């Protein structure tokens, strides 16, 4: 029998006013404290009793100045409280990193995007996390602090398993840095869902390609919802890099991307279907990115 819980379990709510204070709380309460940004993953999990043993909620929203979305010419910086909605609507994101805005818009509902953060999305680390594939193709870097010190983790090394990351319970992400995409690159995120809104990706494919005189100067492909974590498929990327674009090579890339993932069967789709859709959507994304010369109108990365 399924039990529906309408109420939250009991916990204490703490709203530190600085990162230092938040870190002190996390180290004092060890695993029984949970950080929240927007709470759109944590609150439903607590209600469903899918997250247990949490005695303290540590809300980062009491700390001012963490919701920045800033651009300094070399790259984009997202603060831990930058909401998905703010990223989707940010002029600089739309201008320079349109794929990120496109991925943000594909998520959930306006209500959830008003609360949910990009950092929360990757920290929650479900295989289908919609912000992950684009951040992977953009080679984002995640800044992490704890009382013991700080470190920077490449997004490729950030995810370690379903809902698992390199973060330990006493660490906080203080931001994401996203370097400029290569000049003349274009990117696209394709999210396959049965419903047109308010649905999780059955397969997510992000592709960023840099064409130059018919040659593929650079190609980056990241996949969501088809492996224990969101992944880059380097083997597939290498097939086209440095070569002239051809239908045959694009098919080979798509095939290699499908071989490079490890999908599971669940109530959303079978593993076979997911793998086949990786092939179809990878091919589609590359073709669309190449064929559409009016790139910016389609929300492709223009590069810087």
């Amino acid at each position, binding site marked *: 029998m399924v039990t529906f819980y309408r109420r939250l379990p*009991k916990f204490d709510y703490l709203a530190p006013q600085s990162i230092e204070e938040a870190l002190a709380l996390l180290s004092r309460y060890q695993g029984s404290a949970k950080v929240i940004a927007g709470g759109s993953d944590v609150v439903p999990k607590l*209600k469903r009793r899918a997250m247990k043993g949490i005695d303290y909620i540590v809300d980062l929203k009491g700390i001012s100045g963490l919701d920045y979305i800033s651009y300094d010419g070399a790259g984009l910086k997202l603060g831990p409280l930058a909401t998905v909605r703010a990223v989707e609507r940010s002029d600089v994101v739309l201008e320079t990193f349109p794929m990120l805005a496109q991925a943000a818009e594909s998520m959930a509902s306006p209500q959830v995007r008003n609360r949910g953060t990009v950092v929360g999305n990757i920290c929650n680390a479900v295989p289908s996390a919609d912000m992950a594939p684009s951040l992977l193709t953009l080679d984002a870097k995640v800044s992490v602090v704890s009382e013991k010190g700080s470190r920077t983790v490449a997004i490729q090394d950030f995810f370690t398993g379903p809902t698992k990351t390199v973060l330990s319970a006493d660490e906080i992400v203080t931001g994401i840095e996203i370097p400029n995409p290569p000049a003349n690159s274009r990117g696209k995120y394709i999210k396959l869902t049965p419903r047109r809104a*308010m649905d999780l990706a059955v397969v997510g494919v992000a592709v960023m390609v840099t064409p130059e005189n018919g040659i593929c100067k650079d190609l980056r492909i990241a996949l969501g919802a088809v492996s224990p974590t969101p992944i880059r498929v380097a083997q597939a990327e290498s097939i086209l890099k440095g070569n002239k674009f051809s239908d045959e090579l694009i098919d080979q890339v798509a095939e290699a991307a499908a071989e490079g993932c490890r999908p599971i069967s669940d109530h959303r789709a079978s593993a076979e279907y997911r793998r086949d859709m990786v092939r179809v959507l990878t091919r589609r994304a590359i073709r669309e990115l190449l064929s559409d010369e009016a790139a910016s109108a389609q929300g492709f990365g223009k590069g810087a």
Partner: protein
Amino acid sequence: MKSIKLEINGVQHEVEVAPWRTLLEVIREELQMTGTKEGCGLGECGACSVLMDGKTVNSCLVLAAEANGKRITTIEGLAQAERLHPIQQSFIDNGGFQCGFCTPGMIMSTKVMLDDNPNPTDDEIKKGISGNLCRCTGYAKIFDSIRAAKVAMAASSDGRGGA
């Protein structure tokens, strides 16, 4: 218990709440404003939508403590005295609901959408209410209501329709 301050529909409230209580529970149970509905309780259906500092949120996912010091608007805050908000009137005139359970949330999402973009396309309307589920209407009458509301609001100088 925590003491929190909420400005709801222009009125200041100070309430004592347990840290695990949601904004929705405070609105409905402590303050007895039952216009805002609880459907799924998990962020999926939008029946609990309210405006917090001008943005739609699922009040079932917001801790009351997180809303401390915020400005909240619920469905009860839209009418001016006896005069309904043009979106409310439009839902009545166009049969935009059957059981009515989704309606308060649907109207809050519509309000934000039209304040932001007074002339949305049908596609923009779909996106604007993508976080609100309706089990009854099949959405056709909801679309009619929203299209009519946008015309009514555009026709009035104060953006509220009517006189």
